[in-house]
Structure formats: structure tokens, C-alpha cells
């Protein structure tokens, strides 16, 4: 019965790490497969600090990495990809490939936690010029600078005086084909605006938005905080175009609540790029035959009442592979998916 004692977890971001830890806590074995050379997933690789508490990511997530690395019940396979899967609940035969060497593992259930990728701003239908202007960057580019403890204009390496965030880049846009809200970018932009003002107290920071999506505690923890303590300017109205003017960027939009057009010169523009299913998520959909829902993410059954069960028996999904998720959603889903995976294996054992 070894196979029914093992859950395969694909992807070692917050959801996958939590799933692996939970499987082992529930007394089963986990094989945790990660395509990259590092654990922790997108937040760990790309974000200097976490939203909403502004804690350093590596420090905050250390306990999650430790829980799988020093755990005899979790078999961690780095630099490894899934290339094929056969079989069914209780007995999946999954082919893993590492450095061109393939092995086949027999597992009872599977948790897919392959996450999202950031929207490529080259695909946006406005005219923001990400690939044209050095000083137009993304949230991820900004985090790279934060990791080095600085924020500068890439064109001059000097600190910016005026910084603008543009929200919903790649999200909520029928023209692009992404009708959904990416859920975390309002919070991340607000978090980053606080960090910029901490580093450069004399800078002016603007956030151009359509609606601010600051649900739950994020409202006062980061939105009100940014406004009240750091004087961040939230301007309702989305930028239509960025034009280079001298060595500055002319940002054109409408200040809708003031009822006037707006043209402001900026030193640095940060695009709040949203989430799309990662290549790995799309690949897992094909390999495991998991249908994708209408936005392109992995489909779950049960709507809001079952967030982790896919239509394929024995295969579960956790985190942003199932749609835009924040970290707390992802971690909760990781534990829920692990519990359900162990649950079906337990039922199989009882039936024997």
C-alpha cells in the first residue's frame, strides 16, 4: 500500500510548501516537486517583503522551507519537472524528469500548486512603453531594487522625486482577455508606496486606480496607512498613455473624482501587473487532464464551498493555479488540499 501513502505535490510556493507540511503532519508521505532550483515560489523569488505586514519574505517564510527540508516524510525534488501521468486515484504513475533523466513515481493523490506568472506588460493595450522606457518598471522590478535596499530611476540611478503606480495592468480588461481582478496588486502597490516613502520621505507617490480592492484588514493596515501616515496620493482614473518628455515621463489620465484631465511628469512609473496562469499551471492542465475554467486557471468543483477539488478524482489544486490568490489564501488552500488528498487515500485504505 506504499502508493496510497504518498501524495505528489507539484510546485513549492506557499501553497505547495504548506500542502507538503500538512501531508506529513497527517502521517502520509509527500513528494514535493519543484521545477526551479529554489523553494518558496514566486513570492520568495520576487518579493523583498510580504503584503500586508511588510515583513521580510525570506525571514517570514523560513519556517515553511525548514518544515519540508528537514522532514523525513517529505521527499523534495528540485530542478524537476512532471512530463507525464497515467493511472487514477490511488495509483497514479507520474514521470518526473531531472537533467534529462526520467523516473516514474507511483502516488495515490496529487496536489497541483504551480501558481501564476506576472502579466507581461508588453501585451497591454494602453501605451505604457514598458519595453521602450527605462523608467517604466513593474512591481517585480521594484521589489528587486527593494531587495538591494534602494529605489532609483533605472535611467539615471538617482532617486525619483515623483513616482506613479498604474493599477490593473493586464487585469480587468476585456481587450486583453483578462476579465478578472488579480486581487493582490492594490495591496502590493500600497505596500510598495509605503516602502518608497520610508526610503525617500520627500518623494511624491501617486497610485492611479479604477477601484481600490483592499478587502478585510488590508483596508486600514495598508490603504489607510499609506494615505494617512505616508501621504500617498490615490487618484481614481487610469492612465491612457505615457510619453517621454525630456528625461521625464508624462503620464496622461483623468482625475475622475476631481473631474478634470490630468497630465503629470513622473520620474518613475511602476506598472501593477496582474496574474495569469503560469506555464507550469497550463502544462499541468494538459498532463493531468484538469479542465481550465473560463479565465484559464485550473477548474475546481463546488464553487465557493470547495476551493481545492478538481473534476479529476484524486487531483487537487492549491494557490494561484486556481485563480488569483493572496498568500493567506494560498497557504489555506495548501492545507485544505493536503487534508482532502490524505482523506481520499484514507478512504481507499478502508475499502481494501
Amino acid at each position, binding site marked *: 500500500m506504499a502508493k496510497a501513502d504518498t501524495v505528489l505535490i507539484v510546485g513549492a510556493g506557499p501553497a505547495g510548501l504548506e500542502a507538503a507540511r500538512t501531508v506529513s503532519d497527517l502521517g502520509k508521505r509527500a513528494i514535493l516537486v519543484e521545477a526551479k532550483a529554489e523553494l518558496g515560489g514566486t513570492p520568495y523569488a520576487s518579493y523583498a517583503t510580504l503584503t500586508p505586514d511588510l515583513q521580510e519574505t525570506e525571514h517570514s517564510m523560513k519556517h515553511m522551507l525548514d518544515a519540508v527540508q528537514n522532514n523525513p516524510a517529505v521527499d523534495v525534488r528540485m530542478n524537476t519537472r512532471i512530463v507525464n501521468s497515467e493511472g487514477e486515484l490511488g495509483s497514479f504513475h507520474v514521470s518526473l524528469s531531472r537533467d534529462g533523466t526520467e523516473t516514474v513515481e507511483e502516488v495515490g493523490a496529487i496536489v497541483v500548486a504551480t501558481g501564476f506568472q506576472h502579466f507581461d506588460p508588453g501585451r497591454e493595450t494602453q501605451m505604457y512603453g514598458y519595453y521602450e522606457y527605462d523608467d517604466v518598471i513593474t512591481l517585480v522590478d521594484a521589489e528587486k531594487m527593494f531587495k538591494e535596499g534602494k529605489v532609483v530611476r533605472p535611467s539615471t540611478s538617482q532617486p525619483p522625486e515623483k513616482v506613479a503606480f498604474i493599477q490593473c495592468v493586464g487585469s480587468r480588461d476585456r481587450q486583453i482577455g483578462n476579465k478578472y481582478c488579480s486581487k493582490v496588486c492594490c495591496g502590493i502597490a500600497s505596500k510598495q508606496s509605503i516602502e518608497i516613502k520610508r526610503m525617500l520621505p520627500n518623494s511624491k507617490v501617486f497610485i492611479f486606480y479604477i477601484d*481600490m480592492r483592499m478587502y478585510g484588514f488590508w483596508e486600514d493596515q495598508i490603504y489607510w496607512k499609506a494615505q494617512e501616515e505616508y501621504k500617498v496620493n490615490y487618484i481614481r482614473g487610469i492612465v491612457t498613455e505615457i510619453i517621454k518628455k525630456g528625461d521625464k515621463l508624462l503620464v496622461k489620465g483623468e482625475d475622475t473624482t*476631481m473631474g478634470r*484631465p490630468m497630465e503629470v511628469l513622473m520620474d518613475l512609473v511602476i506598472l501593477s501587473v496582474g496574474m495569469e496562469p503560469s506555464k507550469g499551471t497550463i502544462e499541468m492542465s494538459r498532463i493531468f487532464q484538469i479542465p481550465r475554467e473560463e479565465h484559464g486557471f485550473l477548474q475546481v468543483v463546488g464553487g465557493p464551498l470547495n476551493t481545492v477539488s478538481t473534476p479529476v478524482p484524486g487531483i487537487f489544486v492549491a494557490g494561484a493555479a486556481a485563480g488569483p490568490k493572496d498568500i493567506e489564501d494560498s497557504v489555506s488552500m495548501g492545507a485544505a488540499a493536503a487534508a482532502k488528498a490524505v482523506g481520499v487515500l484514507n478512504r481507499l485504505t478502508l475499502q481494501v
Partner: protein
Amino acid sequence: MPSDRYGDVALEEKQRLFDEVKADSRYKTYLYGCYECGICVAACPSARFYDFSPRKITQTLAREDVELFYEQLNDDVWNCSQCFSCNRCPRQNSPGGLITIMREVAVKNGLRTTKEALAGYTRIIYKIMTTGTQVSPDMLQEDAFPDWGPQVKQVSENLDVWRRVLPPETLHTTGLSWQVEERTMHELYAIWKMTGTLDMIGELDEGLHDIMEEIMDDALEESGIVSE
């Protein structure tokens, strides 16, 4: 972008006035932040009749938009009726309170637009500051209040008699809304002087200031209240 109406005023001057508003000790509890929900405008009686928005005042201060602040300091703050219906703000801002501070700064600095806005109120300021009461019965003349109907003329002709019909003796007045105790009036003068309110009027209307100062100084000297 703000209009170019005040383009000739230096940014430093606008910033100086803005800093004066911000330095007011009430400012911190009158302004937190604004998410532009519009509840203050929905509650505002002035907003129904004027191109006036307590939200925009609050937003402008929260954004620290100095150019727009200066425009509002000149053009908007006197459209508020200071009823404080806007205090229902869910962020606990007080748009009306912010306007109070802005008005005080506008008056203290003798802005031209403030002088213009308050020019018609000279008589009311005089009345309030020297008597403690505002609209007196003898101001109710037919030509001043045609919308009150034909009885205004009738009443104003025998005002003294009509007033003496009223039961409380303190209302047997024509030049005051009611009889004000001399002691109360003197205390009021002392307050106007000691709080700098009288000086504020000096920036606005020197003649009015001098007349009122003379009245107050004479009365206070007689009463001996200042030395108390």
C-alpha cells in the same frame, strides 16, 4: 490640473498658507484620509445650491495639492454654511472643520477674495462683535426682506409696540435681538481681544476694526474687567 486663475501668485506663498493651515492644532483630528466616497457632499446643503464640494476640499488637503488648495482658499470656502453635516464622514474627517481653519487663515492673511466675500457682512460682523446678537428687529425692513410678505411693512412701522407685546422683557428691544447683560458684553469684548479675533478683522477691514476696537476699549476700561 488647477485653473490658471492664480498663476500670478508664487508657489511659495501658496505653500506658506497651506503650511499655516496644516500647523493648526485641530488639523490632525480634522483630516485623516479620503477615499472619495462622497457622503459629505450627499449630506451638504450648500452642495445642492453651489458648485461646492466638501469632498474636494478634503481630498485636496489629503493629497497636499498646494495649487488647488490655494484656489479653494479663495473661491470655495465661503460657500460652506458651517453646519457640519459632513462630520458623518466614515474616516472621521471634518471637512467643515478644515474649512473653519482655512477661513481663519484666509481672514488673518487678508486675502483679496476674502475681503470681497465678506464685504456684504460688515454690518453683521459689527453687530455680533459689539452686541453679541446678530439680526436685530430693526433690520427687518420691507426692502430688505420682500420675501417675508406684506406684514413686514406693517410690523416695522410700529416695531417698538409689537416688541413690547412679547412676554419676556428681554425681548423689548429693537436694535438688539434681545437685551444682553452688560457684563456678558464686556466678557465678549475681552474674549475677542485676547483670542486675536479682533486683530483678524483688522486684516480684513481696517475701518471696521478701528470702530469696534474703540467701542471695546472704552467699555473695558470702564468695566475694569481687563485688570481683573
